């Protein structure tokens, strides 16, 4: 693997990691907070 290949892998890898980490954090927090709502109000239209 050449140096340029490593740079490409780093760019794609960091994009994937940052987006997945942020999405997971947002969804997890939404699930935790929605548990405090009454069940009939948990549906999003």
């Amino acid at each position, binding site marked *: 693997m050449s140096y340029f290949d490593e740079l490409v892998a780093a760019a794609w890898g*960091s994009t994937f990691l*940052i987006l997945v980490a942020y*999405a997971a954090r947002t969804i997890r927090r939404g699930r935790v907070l929605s548990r405090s709502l009454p069940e009939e109000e948990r549906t999003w239209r």
Partner: protein
Amino acid sequence: MSLIPKPTGTANRTTRVLGAGALVTAAFTAWVGLIESPPDVTQGQLVRIIYVHPAAATACYVAFGLCALSSVAYLWPRTRSRRWDLLAGASAEVGVVFCVLTLVTGSIWGRGSWGVWWTWDARLTLTALLLALFLGYLALRRSGGDGESRARRSAVAAVCFSVVVPIDHYATSWWRTLHQGDTLLKVDPSIHGWQLVGMAASFVAQLLILSWLLLHRYRLEQLEDRYETEGFAAALTERRAEAAVDAGSAAALAPTPTAQAAPEASSAPAGQPAPERENSQ
């Protein structure tokens, strides 16, 4: 008991469709960008970063632009609604994530093509400034004060900060910069074939990801707002109930001579007066 569980969290049918679309286009972009498209004549394999970096920058601009538009809608008396403020907050946070992505991938690309991780080029500096400004905006949203004045302050800040977005975009045209200019927004684009397909797919993928994240983050913002408001109201009700119990027990104890002879009992912490008075006797 229903076979389908009650939905929890911030997802619904729309987010699932958007998420599926984002996954499919992202996978297609990865296939074109990493496998199908040929290396560039001058940049070699390094050109494959073009399938993540410009799309991330565009998503960042769109998110900050949406933040500014929502803030204007909040400030405009006819359209003022708490929802615009929540949408502004959500889009600013998602925009910050894409701004970080832009800087990280741009820095990696710069290391390969210019030989340095960072240089004080106009485009790079303005993007870093944009990140700093919107981080400040997010900090401002968490500052003190009542909800309405905080929202108004944040909206004014967002409108002022978003002026940097078009300056950042046109920096490569207005000044001599190391950063290359437009690739697609030209009469005759400088890329063709699989490179053009891959780049177009990357824009679609990241804009779908942006929409998906925005919907989730906006709903989370609504939940947080509701939790904050209702949590405060519940705490206030609880405190008033405690105060009423305190007042009731104090009134019941007032005529007794022992209670009058023990003035230090009135300074006891809330919720514990009656047992302490009984013990003090």
